[in-house]
């Protein structure tokens, strides 16, 4: 899981792609539906494929299923229908005992942060390393680094309830990054941040992506999506209504060419 591993893996992926042998997708959903107990539809027959090293935005109205998608990817709950494969592994085959090990390969920034309330900023981030059995030395080396990167160096010993919303969000980001996971899921990583800090976080995500890490960001941040011009997947009531490369946040007024491409993409199996 060392950071040094990532570029070489990305390079290998590039080589394979150059050889006309595309790498297997990191994330692959086939006909995935998620219905909650109350009858709410989280996802509705979603097909999706994300290649290694991609940077993907997931956008959509509140309640459109963005968080549901993220949660399914870390196996917090199972899909009602369909199959989800991550790095070639079918999540349906993952036994309860193996789930923790699987999750260690994915960094997740939760929409509600999910920080441990009785631990300091430092300990919250360190916990993600401790569960993997990391040595004290490793923790001493990595944690201050990532906290500096997220601008939290002065808040090391604060507890989450002594932080602003934006600071808590940055702790969540730091915890997700500290392991250098090959797949990063960020659910609204800039939801509570001012534009300047948002840009900082986005730059961080960008850098992480550049090292070969696949990054999926669920967001409402129009400015960010418009600026980055990456692949955008738009959800509406649990269905994918748009999947567009190098796109803007708003797909409301696509020109006819784009619409044609979109339709074609959806009609073709």
């Amino acid at each position, binding site marked *: 899981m060392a950071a040094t591993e990532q570029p070489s893996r990305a390079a290998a992926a590039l080589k394979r792609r150059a050889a006309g042998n595309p790498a297997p997708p990191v994330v692959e959903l086939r006909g995935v539906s998620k219905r909650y107990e109350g009858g709410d539809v989280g996802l509705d027959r979603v097909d999706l494929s994300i290649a290694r090293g991609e940077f993907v935005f997931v956008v959509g109205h509140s309640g459109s299923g963005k968080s549901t998608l993220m949660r399914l990817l*870390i196996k*917090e709950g199972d899909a009602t229908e369909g199959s989800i494969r991550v790095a070639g592994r079918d999540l349906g085959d993952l036994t309860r*005992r193996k*789930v*923790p*090990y699987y*999750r*260690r390969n994915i960094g*997740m920034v*939760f929409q509600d942060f*999910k*920080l*441990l*309330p*009785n631990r300091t900023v430092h300990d919250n981030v360190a*916990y*993600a390393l*401790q*569960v*993997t*059995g990391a*040595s*004290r030395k490793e923790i001493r080396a990595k944690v201050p680094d990532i906290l500096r990167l997220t601008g939290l160096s002065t808040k090391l010993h604060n507890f989450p309830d002594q932080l602003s919303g934006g600071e808590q969000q940055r702790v969540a980001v730091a*915890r997700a990054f500290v392991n250098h996971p090959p797949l990063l899921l960020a659910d609204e990583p800039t939801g509570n941040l001012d534009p300047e800090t948002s840009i900082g976080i986005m730059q961080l995500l960008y850098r992480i992506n550049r090292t070969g890490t696949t990054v999926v960001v669920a967001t409402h941040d129009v400015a960010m999506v418009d600026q980055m011009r990456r692949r955008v997947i738009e959800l509406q009531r649990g269905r994918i209504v748009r999947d567009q490369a190098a796109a803007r946040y708003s797909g409301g007024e696509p020109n006819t060419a784009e619409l044609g491409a979109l339709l074609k993409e959806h009609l073709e199996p």
Partner: protein
Amino acid sequence: MRLGFFLKEALRSMKRNPIPSFAAMASVLVTLLVLGVFIPVVQATTGAANEVRQKVSLEVYLKRNVTQDQITHVRGILADQQGVKTVQFVSKADAYKRESKQNPEAYALLGSNPLPDSFRITPDNPDDITAIRDALAPTTASGKRTVIDPAIDEVKNRKDETDKILTATKVVKLAMLLLCGLLVVASALLVSNTIRLSLFSRRREVEVMKLVGATDWFIRWPFVIEGIILGSLGGILAILMLAVGKIAFIDPLAADFALISAPQTMSLGLLALLLMLAAVGVSTLGSGLSLRRFLKV
């Protein structure tokens, strides 16, 4: 590194739930105090009861005015009986001396010696005493006892009393065992409850831990250690209190009471070790109980 981390986590949790932690520790403490008092007492009573059993003897009273020849003859018969260890002659005069010492006023009133010569028989095995008695004084068809030698007047044993003592100690032992068992169960449940409370108050936290990749056992160990620490603390306190109690109260009295200084009681060190084992066992059982059921997040 791992152990250090788990220990820190356990202490953190105890600091957060001081009252239930204290209750669990106190219950272990009380259980161990009771155990620590009961074990030596039960041992001492068993020892005393055994001593009584060892002292079981058969008294063979001879008729008045038997001759020396008859005495020698009876001694030979008695010594030949199966299961007889010793045969001791108690002359009239000896018996009088002993009895009048125990009860001087009554014997002073009597003036003369009413006691017969007798033999005291100790069996090899206290349980054989009835058999020996039956051999010396068989029951006839009519249900009356006869004696095998005309010089013998009566054969008596003190078995009845012994039986009473043995039954009494048995009942006491059983009652204590039951009480100890109940206490052990009660404190295991209390420890279990403490751990459950501790887990329950951190349900959300445990959920988050799982989401960032903690295995079940990574989450469990601190709780198990918490239980063991609580139990050990209770155990250490109980042992200290018992030691102080023994030195302050029992030791000064020991000279006067045979029961307390009975050689069969175990050393304090062994008792402490046993109690410590019980403490750790009880608390591990307690935390195990709630972890099994409560960690299906």
